[in-house]
C-alpha cells in the first residue's frame, strides 16, 4: 500500500505541476516546473525502490542498504534543476520587463 500511496503522491504533484505549467504565466510556469521536478526527482529516486531505515552509509554490521545509485543521480538532478530554475527565473524576470507582460504566449500580452 505504501508503494501505491507514494506513487499517487508523485502523480498528484506532477498533475498539479502540469496544470500550473499550462497556466501560461511565467510565474505559474516556474511553480509548475518546481512541482514537476519534485515529482521527477521522487520518481527517479524511487526507481531504486523504497526502503526505510537503510541509509546507504557503509557500516560493518549492516547487510542491507538502500540503492545508492538513484540517490546519486537525484542529487545531480536536483543541483542541475537549481541551475535551470535560477536561469529560467531570471529570463522570466527580464522577459516580463521587456515584453511588458508575464504571459508567455505571443499575442496574449494584453491578457496581463
Amino acid at each position, binding site marked *: 500500500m505504501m508503494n501505491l500511496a507514494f506513487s499517487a503522491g508523485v502523480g498528484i504533484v506532477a498533475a498539479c505541476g502540469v496544470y500550473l*505549467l499550462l497556466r501560461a504565466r*511565467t510565474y505559474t*510556469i516556474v511553480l509548475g*516546473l518546481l512541482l*514537476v*521536478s519534485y*515529482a*521527477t*526527482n521522487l*520518481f*527517479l*529516486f*524511487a*526507481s*531504486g*525502490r523504497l526502503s526505510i531505515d537503510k541509509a546507504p552509509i557503509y557500516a560493518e554490521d549492516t547487510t542491507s542498504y538502500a540503492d545508492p*545509485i*538513484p540517490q546519486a*543521480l537525484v542529487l*545531480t*538532478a536536483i543541483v*542541475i534543476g537549481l*541551475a*535551470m530554475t535560477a*536561469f*529560467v527565473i531570471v*529570463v*522570466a524576470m*527580464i*522577459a516580463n520587463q*521587456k*515584453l511588458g507582460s508575464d504571459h*508567455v504566449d*505571443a499575442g496574449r500580452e494584453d491578457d496581463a
Partner: protein
Amino acid sequence: MSGMLPIAMVVLPMFIAAVSLWVGARAENPDVARDRQRALGRFSLVAMVPLAIMMLQATDAGEVAVVRLGNWPSPFAITLVVDRLSALMVTLTVVLTLFVEWGARDGAEAEGPYFHPLLQFQVMGLNGAFMTGDLFNLFVFFEILLIASYALLLFGQGKQRLRAALHYIVLNLVGSCLFLIAVGVIYGLLGTLNMADLAAKAALVPAADAPLLKAGALLLLLVFGIKAAIVPVHLWLPSTYHAAAGPVSALFAIMTKVGMYAIIRVFIPIFGPGQGEVASVAEPWVLPVGLATLVVGTLGVLAANDFKKMLTYVVVASVGTQAIAVGLFTQQGLAAAVFYIAHSTLLTAGFFLLADAVILRRGEVGGRLSAGPLIPSARALAVLYLVAAMSTVGLPPLSGFVGKALLLAAVPTAWQPAVWTVTIVTSFVMLVQLARIGSVLFWNISSDREATPEVPPGVRSLAPAASLLTASVVISLFGQQLDTFSRATAAQIYDRARTIERVMTDAEPPPKDPQKKKAQKKAKKEGGDA
C-alpha cells in the same frame, strides 16, 4: 587511440573555459578580457581539430576507444566510448564551432560577455554527449550543452529573442524531466546505466517487464525527439533559431543532431532489432514522424516570407530527412543518415552564416522577402547562395544530392512509395521556394531601398560562410570516402555484440609504468583491509 584523446575533447574546453574566466576577470578592461578570451578559445578550437581528426582516423581503422573514468570496471565506471559515429560527431562539432567562432567576430552582437567561455562549455557539452557511454551521463551533458545554448541564444536579448529563449528553456526543462523519468523506469527495471550493459540486459528482459520498459524507452524517444525537433514536438525550433544571432543559429546546426544521435545510440543497440521482448521499440514511430517532419518543414519553407525564417524550416525538413533515414532501421538507412547528418550540419551552419551576412547588408529590409537594395558583395553572396540552395534542395553535384540519393537508394521496397513521393515532392517545393527567395534577394532590386551603410568590409568577411559551404562541395567530391565511413559506422552500430564485448570485458590498456599501477592497487587493497 590513447584514452587521453577522448578525455581531452571534454577536459580541454572545460579547462580553457575556466582559465579564460579567470583571465577575463583579471583583465583591466572588457576589451582586453575579450581579446584574451578569444585567443584562448581559438587556441582550444584549433587544437581540438587535429585531435578530433586523430580520433576519426583511429576509429576508422576499426578501433573503439573505451575510457573507464575513475579506472573502475564496466559497467560501474562512467565510460566514454568512441566509435566511428562519436568521432564523426565530435569532429563535426569542433570544426563547426571553429567556423562559427570565426564568423562571430563580425557580429559584435553575438560576442556578448563570456561568449568565448560559453562557447567552450558548449563544445564540452556537445563532445561529452557524443562520446559518453552512460545514459545518465548523457543527461548531464545534455544539460551542459543546453544551458550553454540558452546563454548563447540570449545574447543581445531583444523581445523576440527573450520570448523564444523562454519557450526553448521551459520546453527543454519539461524534456529534462521526461528524460529523468525515463531513466528512472529503465534503471528500475534493468538496474544499470551503462549503455552497453543496458543493451545486454534489455535483450533478456522478461515479458512481464517488457511493456513497462518500452514505455520508458518511448519516453526517451520523445525526449530525443524534442531535442531533434521531430513533429509534433518541433514547434519550438523555428522561432528559436530565427531569434538567435546569426553565428549562434549557425552553431545550433549541431543541436538537433544531438537528438538524432541519441536516437541512434539508444534505439538501435539497446532497443533495436533483435532485442528480445523489447526489440525495435522505436520502429513504428520514427519513420512516420520523420515523413511528417519533412512535410511540415517543407510547408514552413514554402510559407516563409523571411530568409532566415525559411532556413529554420529547412532545418526542420532536414531533421525529417534524417529521421526517415534512421527510421528505416536498416544498416543502409543508418549509413545514409550518418552521411546526411555530416552534410547537413556544415551546410546548415554555412547557410545561416550566409543569411546573416545577407540580412546584415540589406538594410531595413533585412531578411524580408521583398524588393531590397543592391547589396555590396552581391556576386559573391549570390554564388554562395546558389551553392547552399542547390545543396539544400539536393541538386547535383553537391553533397545534398549525394545524401538524398543515398537515402532514396536505402529505402526498402515496402516504404519506397511513401518515402520517395514525399522526398520528391518536398524537394520540388524547396526548389521552387529557394529559387524564388534567391531571385528576390539578389535580383529583385528596388532603387528606393538602401543597403546598410556601414557593413563589415567586403568579401573577406564571408570567408567562414564560404568555407562551410565549400564543405558541401568537398563532401560531394569525397563522397565515397564519407559513404564508406558511414557504412562502416552503421555496421558498427548494428554490431551490438561486439560493442558490448568491447565495453564490458575488454581489458584495460597496459599501464605505461607497471610500478605505479601496482602502487595504486596496493593502496586500494590496503584501503580494503583497513
